[in-house]
């Protein structure tokens, strides 16, 4: 039985089909979850896909965190379930308090849409368990608000807690400490600005995202056995 991966769709989400496709290509079974759902339907992992949930009004992710599905996601996180937020999904997880810090406008105020090199900083997370430490992955970014910020105490805590999951080799957006992705203390929630689903097939120009989503599927399969 393959891992069932819930892909959360808010009004304004626009990467859910790409994510679902990549999950399927990598051997998982994607299931769309509407933001108004109060249940995750027993999925083994959850991905919050990119886009502009609720139009990104007020702040990115600010309204999305109040969608009914987010209560179910918080319960799933508390039970140890693997959850990944990609781009707008990362912003939503931060607003929801499931990840520390926040994402603000890129330094330089440019929308950055390009492939970038990322360095894997830790492999003890649901998104990087199949990767190697210091491995370089070439994966596209596509965002205006990917500039990670947090206060000094939080930065120290995530550095010392090995919660920086991915760093940019060349910082494209002003992110603190070159952070491209982080995890929570439980290591079952990961947020990242780059889009691994857009680097999961050779035809897309890179398959470097496959090791990340493949890791999530492996985590989901483990969760399914529990």
């Amino acid at each position, binding site marked *: 039985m393959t891992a069932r991966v819930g892909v959360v769709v808010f009004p304004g989400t626009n990467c859910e089909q790409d994510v679902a496709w990549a999950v399927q290509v990598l051997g998982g079974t994607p299931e769309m979850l509407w933001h108004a759902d109060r249940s995750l339907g027993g999925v083994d992992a959850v991905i919050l896909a990119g886009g502009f949930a609720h139009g990104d009004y*007020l702040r990115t992710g*600010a309204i999305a965190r*109040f969608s009914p599905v987010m209560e179910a996601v918080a319960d799933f996180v508390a039970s140890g379930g693997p959850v990944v937020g990609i781009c707008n999904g990362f912003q939503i997880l931060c607003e929801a308090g499931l990840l*520390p810090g*926040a994402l*603000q*406008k*890129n*330094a330089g*105020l440019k929308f950055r849409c390009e492939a970038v090199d990322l360095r894997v900083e830790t492999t003890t997370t649901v998104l990087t368990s199949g990767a190697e430490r210091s491995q370089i992955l070439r994966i596209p970014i596509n965002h205006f608000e990917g500039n990670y910020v947090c206060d000094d105490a939080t930065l120290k805590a995530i550095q010392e807690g090995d919660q920086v999951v991915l760093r940019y080799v060349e910082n494209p957006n002003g992110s603190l400490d070159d952070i491209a992705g982080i995890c929570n203390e439980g290591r079952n929630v990961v947020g990242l600005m780059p889009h691994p689903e857009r680097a999961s097939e050779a035809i897309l120009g890179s398959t470097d995202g496959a090791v990340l989503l493949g890791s999530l599927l492996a985590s989901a399969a483990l969760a399914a056995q529990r």
Partner: protein
Amino acid sequence: MKSYEARIEVGHRPGILDPQGGVIERALPALGYASVSHVRVGKSIRLAVEAPDEASARAQVEEMCRKLLANPVIEVFTVEILAADDGR
């Protein structure tokens, strides 16, 4: 219950990079305003709120700010409460 108008300003927390403020600060000297510094760009939100008194109106609005209107990780807010103008 009385009607109050709340004027809320949301700005960057001190020390948080404000890219928009930075761009404006670099643009103003091009117009001859070389004396400008410390430009910060924020948001202004206005709303009407029903409450028994001003203190209660302020308490409600500050709670809204903490829960939704501002993100305490990167933003600070100020709230001004005015008696609603009947001519609104």
